[in-house]
């Protein structure tokens, strides 16, 4: 192949032929010098030379490329040294190409040119094509069909499933954020349960608060109902009649207390402390004041009297209440 190319070039332009021959001569000279120096270097070191490239990395590359074959103990070091010589030879040829173009910076085009001019480097055509695809300005290279076919087989040995696995691994990270929302919802649920507990407690408190009010308000409610049923003028009359009854006769006063016997007994049993009973009455009195004018005063006086009597004669009232319960049929007769 190279011979007919040279003939063609000779027919067309002798200058190009001369420059190419000069380039090849320079390369050969540089290579002779390089191989001589490397041979001497290796013989002098006698295997004790330190390698610049890491052996472990080269070993990984060998395993990634070959697959299942095992390597002898001295193969990784051997291949590392081999790779070093190859890189140095390649870059030295590229340096000669750069010099032929009057440059001191080695570019990708120089390496591509070195690959083109060396027949044993044609297996690197795929690598150069890859870099061309990335966008670098490297001219195309003509390679024999057989070697290209072999290179295609090598490229076919790539691992698409691994790429798929990589995408699968990429899919996993989106699943991770799902966990925190679950935790948050859990915390919200716990807070909601706390809220429910608080509500329950409040309900219990309300029930507790309401029960003493109901118990205390039983006698006062009765009084209030009687007032409302009679009306304003009737209510006044009723109050006046009560006052009259209380003031002249002590027995009538006892009867008045006997009318409240049942609720009072209930109150006594439910609430053992009389002080609280008194306090509740006072609050009710205060509430009644703004509602009525003259009647308010009368109510206050009556309540005060009742309050004074109850603590003084607690034991007596209790005994009387019991007697009255025994005298149940007598109550029916007066009614």
């Amino acid at each position, binding site marked *: 192949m190279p011979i007919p190319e040279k003939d063609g070039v000779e027919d067309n332009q002798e200058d190009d032929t001369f420059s190419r021959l000069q380039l090849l001569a320079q390369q050969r000279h540089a290579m002779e010098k390089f191989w001589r120096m490397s041979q001497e270097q290796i013989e002098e070191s006698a295997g004790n030379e330190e390698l610049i490239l890491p052996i472990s990395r080269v070993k990984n590359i060998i395993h990634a490329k*070959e697959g299942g*074959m095992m*390597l002898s103990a001295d193969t990784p070091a*051997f291949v590392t040294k081999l790779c070093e010589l190859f890189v140095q030879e390649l870059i030295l040829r590229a340096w000669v190409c750069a010099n032929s173009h009057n440059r001191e910076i080695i570019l990708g085009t120089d390496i591509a040119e070195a690959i083109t001019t060396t027949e044993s480097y044609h297996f690197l055509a795929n690598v150069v094509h890859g870099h061309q695809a990335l966008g670098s300005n490297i001219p195309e290279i003509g390679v024999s069909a057989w070697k290209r076919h072999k290179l295609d087989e090598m490229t076919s040995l790539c691992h698409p499933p691994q*790429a798929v696995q990589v995408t699968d691994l990429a899919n996993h990270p989106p699943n991770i954020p799902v966990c925190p929302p679950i935790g948050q919802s859990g915390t919200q649920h716990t807070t909601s349960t706390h809220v429910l507990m608080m509500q329950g407690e409040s309900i219990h408190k309300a029930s507790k608060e309401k029960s003493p009010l109901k118990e205390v308000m039983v006698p006062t409610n009765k009084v209030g109902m009687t007032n409302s049923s009679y009306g304003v003028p009737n209510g006044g009359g009723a109050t006046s009649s009560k006052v009259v009854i209380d003031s002249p006769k002590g027995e009538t006063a006892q009867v008045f207390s006997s009318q409240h016997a049942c609720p009072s007994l209930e109150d006594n049993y439910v609430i053992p402390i009389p002080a609280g009973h008194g306090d509740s009455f006072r609050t009710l009195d205060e509430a009644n004041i703004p509602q009525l004018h003259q009647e308010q005063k009368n109510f206050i006086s009556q309540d005060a009297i009742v309050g004074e009597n109850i603590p003084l004669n607690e034991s007596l009232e209790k005994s009387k209440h019991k007697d009255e319960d025994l005298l149940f049929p007598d109550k029916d007769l007066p009614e």
Partner: protein
Amino acid sequence: MAGNKKRGGRNMDQVKKAAVRSDGVGGSATNAELPMANLVRLIKKVLPGKAKIGGAAKGLTHDCAVEFVGFVGDEASEKAKAEHRRTVAPEDYLGSFGDLGFDRYVDPMDAYIHGYREFERAGGNRRVAPPPPAAATPLTPGGPTFTDAELQFLRSVIPSRSDDEYSGSSPAIGGYGYGYGYGKNM
């Protein structure tokens, strides 16, 4: 200068893309890459000081080196399989150089592997000094010690009466007294 900086940036982008592509091809299991710093140091070892290397040239050289290792390794493994062996040895690589057109590599690599094996056989840098000199040392003090013991034993075995008389006649000698005590103990 600005243009050069921009070009440098582009080259770096290309190098990164090449690295990503090589990672994809090689797979996530094994990182089939060489450290760029070591590669550049290796390159500058054979070039004059004034020479410079562009970013794209570094990336291209790296990919060529990886491709070369795979290419030569594939030939060597095929040669080993042809001989029904599961282990690839440097001889397989040396045999494949002729087929691949790398005849110039045979002589230096053959010299290297011979030197490497001799170096490994000698023990390399990790092993300790050879044992023979250490073994020779204890032989020297062993002789006289044994001789002294033998002499004492012979003296103790000799008839006891003469020993007793001699010790009685001259008790001043401390050394002999010690020997006498030793005899009694025995």
